[in-house]
């Protein structure tokens, strides 16, 4: 019981904790994705701003008339110098306001090179026409081209990392290309931007160009050495995406935003497990709480077992003892709650059962006694003696017919009174029994006695205790009629009244005085009243009550000098019960 209970609680607890752990984890994951997305969006936006502003600058310079003049028209050398100076002043002014641009240069297709500042010296070792940005500009007919990040070695002793925009300037009047414009973006702007991004402890942002070169990567050297790999091919193949990579560094979430103008892709790599809440830490917190609650659960179930299951078990054990017939046992549960009440009620119940059992035992004993009494009633030796005396007397007188009648009646009387040992018989049989008895008595008393049996035949199937009418009739004869001077008359009647059967034995004998009647009624149940006639009446009453209950039995109605009426109340039972 305690184990089942504990198991149930533990299982429920585990399920609840597991579900809430998963829910929290998912929420953290979703949060971190959202966060990475927002961050990536803002980085991409800023990088795009740089690209746009470079592009704007290039577009602006492409319309500068001085630049076209310098590279196309033939001027005297002095004028050319003045023009060159003016362009440089112009470019210097632009550059002063632009911290993002580190170099502006114009490279004429005939080989003339101009920097935004005259003091800058061309790196003599560099072959301009072999530079990637220069070749790209020539190939893309007037459109701005963005390079990947690289070291700009155009100026002597300067090696800045830049992103270059190059654009072929075309003389629109003749449709002839004249020069390449180079605008270098300070690379450390992008570097600082991407490096300062905080995507958890290990997350980072990197940028690839359209062919898969890393424009920026915080571990660029490590990636180029092959110590760290990025899924470049997958990145290039997809337009916009979010995917997960699971390798020995753990679960990584890649999300990407394309920069269309430059053809780049900005990628954020985040580690969902370390954003927000550490998964292992979360797990530990949940485990700790889980163990605490588990402990409380086990403790609680022990208390429950101790306070509820234990006394119930004690009660059950006691019931087993009671089942085996020991009614003297009592449970000791000294508690004021429901369990205590249960114990008390149980004790009361056992006590009641014990008492009832005692009563049943007593009743059974009484029944057996009454059976014995019925047996006694069957063979009243005086009656038998008197009857046989009459038979002898009639035989001597040679009244053969009467002898036959009397002996036949006597035989019937005894057959019915034996009635196969049954105690309960039908009213029909009982009436037949008393009829035989009256036949015999009529023969003996002749004119002194008259009788009438009026019991309606519809009452015959109902049940009754046997030999109840005969003792009453016997009483009526010996105590009523025998002492009366008038002719005695006995009426046996019966009726169905309020669902009960009433049998009546009436006589017109001497009757009883109220004192005698009261004395007769006073006699307690089960006690003999007087050795003579009382035995029969009380025997009848007692037997009826034993078989059918206390509400049934015998009532006397009598007036001195007018006779007595005895009413027998019986249940209307058609089948033998009990």
């Amino acid at each position, binding site marked *: 019981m305690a184990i089942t209970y504990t198991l149930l609680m533990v299982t429920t607890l585990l399920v609840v904790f597991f579900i809430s752990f998963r829910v929290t984890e998912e929420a953290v994951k979703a949060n971190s994705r959202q966060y990475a997305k927002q961050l990536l969006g803002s980085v991409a936006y800023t990088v795009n701003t740089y690209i746009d502003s470079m592009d704007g600058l290039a577009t602006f310079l492409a319309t500068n008339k001085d630049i076209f003049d310098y590279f196309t028209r033939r001027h005297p050398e002095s004028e050319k110098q003045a023009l060159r100076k003016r362009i440089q002043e112009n470019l210097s002014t632009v550059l002063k306001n632009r911290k993002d641009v580190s170099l502006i240069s114009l490279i004429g297709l005939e080989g003339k090179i101009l920097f935004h500042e005259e003091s800058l010296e061309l790196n003599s070792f560099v072959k301009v026409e072999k530079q990637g940005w220069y070749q790209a500009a020539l190939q893309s007919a007037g459109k701005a081209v963005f390079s990947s990040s690289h070291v700009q070695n155009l100026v002597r002793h300067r090696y800045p990392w830049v992103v270059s925009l190059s654009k072929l300037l075309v003389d629109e009047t003749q449709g002839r290309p004249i020069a390449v414009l180079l605008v270098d973006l300070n*690379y450390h702007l992008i570097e600082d931007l991407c490096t300062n991004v905080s995507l958890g402890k*290990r997350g980072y942002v990197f940028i690839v160009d359209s062919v898969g070169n890393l424009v920026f990567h915080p571990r660029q*050297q490590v990636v180029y050495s092959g110590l760290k790999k990025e899924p470049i091919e997958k990145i290039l193949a997809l337009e916009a995406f979010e995917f997960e990579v699971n390798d020995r560094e753990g679960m990584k979430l890649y999300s990407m935003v394309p920069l269309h103008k430059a053809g780049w892709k900005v990628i954020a790599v985040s580690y969902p497990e370390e954003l927000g809440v550490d998964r292992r830490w979360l797990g530990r917190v949940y485990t700790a709480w889980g163990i605490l609650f588990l*402990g409380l659960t086990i*403790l609680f179930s*022990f208390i429950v077992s101790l306070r509820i299951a234990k006394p119930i078990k004690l009660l059950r054990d006691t019931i087993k003892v009671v089942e085996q017939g020991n009614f003297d046992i009592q449970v000791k549960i000294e508690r004021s709650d429901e369990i205590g009440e249960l114990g008390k009620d149980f004790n009361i119940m056992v006590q009641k059962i014990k008492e009832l059992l005692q009563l049943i035992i007593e009743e059974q004993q009484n029944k057996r006694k009454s059976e014995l009494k019925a047996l006694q009633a069957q063979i009243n030796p005086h009656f038998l003696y008197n009857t046989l005396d009459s038979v002898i007397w009639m035989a001597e007188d040679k009244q053969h017919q009467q002898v036959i009648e009397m002996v036949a009646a006597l035989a019937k009387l005894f057959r019915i009174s034996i009635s196969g040992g049954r105690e309960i018989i039908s009213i029909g049989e009982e009436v037949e029994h008393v009829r035989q008895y009256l036949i015999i008595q009529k023969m003996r008393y002749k004119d002194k006695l008259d009788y009438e049996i009026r019991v309606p035949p519809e009452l015959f199937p109902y049940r009754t205790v046997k030999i109840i009418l005969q003792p009453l009739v016997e009483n009526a004869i010996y105590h009523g009629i025998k002492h009366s001077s008038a002719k005695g008359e006995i009426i046996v009647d019966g009726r169905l009244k309020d669902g009960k059967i009433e049998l009546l034995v009436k006589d017109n004998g001497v009757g009883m005085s109220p004192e005698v009647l009261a004395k007769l009624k006073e006699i307690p149940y089960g006690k003999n009243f007087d050795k003579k006639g009382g035995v029969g009446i009380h025997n009848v009453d007692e037997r009826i009550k034993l078989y059918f209950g206390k509400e049934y039995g015998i009532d006397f109605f009598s007036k001195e000098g007018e006779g007595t009426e005895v009413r027998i109340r019986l249940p209307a039972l058609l089948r033998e019960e009990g």
Partner: protein
Amino acid sequence: MRRGNVSTLPLILFSILFIGSVVLFFGISAISPPEPPNVIVIVKTVNPAIAFWQVVLEGVQAAAKEFDLAVTIDGPFDEIDVEGQIQIVEKAIQKRPAAIVLGATDYYRLAPSVEKAHREGIQVITFDSDVNSTLPLCFVATDNVEAGRKAGKAMIELAGDSSSLIILSHVKGTSTAIDRERGVREVFEQLNSHALKGVYYCDNFFDKAYQITQEILTAYPWVDGIIALNEVSTVGAIQAIRDLKLKRKVFLVGFDHSMDEIKAIDDGILDATVVQKPFNMGYIALQKVKEVLSGAEIERYIDTGSVLITRESMYYPENQKILFPFASKKGVE
């Protein structure tokens, strides 16, 4: 259930659970958030003018962030200060970090300190320069013999095997100096060349390297070329050649890639330089620390590789990333 158990068992269980829960609960607050393990990185020099070590530390920092390690950086100001570095290691041992990463200034004299750290249960990994002990779990470095071979071969291509050459080394006894010199000598020995005329040590001081170069080139005008074995000796030699206006008359093959060296390549003073991958060195050393701390088996030796850079190859995109680490951008303009 016996009557005796009923009263005592829950009591015992409750006590255990209560104590357990309290310990666990306070344990949780103590461990949250989990502290990254401490790692002390001891370099040969913390002098910010020495680009090589600055880039190594860039790699260290990058890896510390990526692998979640709490890194403390220390080291003597001068590479020659072996005693100073020994004391730094002793001090580091007292702080009881999870691991120490060491670039040893002396192959022999740092060995006892490493052994002591090992006895104290501290994981030791060496990088760039090893110690004379089998105890370091891993040695992350350029294969310096191979790097020396590259320098030797480059010089033979420039000056030929019958020329007269000298080696300008940094600190006698340090493993990088020993190995690189051996690599250079192997090349000449294979060719039965007697071009090597001598080895000089600048003790990793720029002024001394400058002085030695100047004195040699003045005293022995027949010297055709110099092989300088590290950044400081290379830069010293560059300055001396520039000042003596011997550009393109004396061949110079150096090591590493400070801005001075890159300018010197552009200017035609430095003909070639053997470049290591310091960023990778720092990064991998810390990566190995992480692996050791998480219980993985690691290799005893990791070669981070080296590349020979000449005037032609210096602007190849793949070499740009090595030659112009982003770290040095501040010194560029």
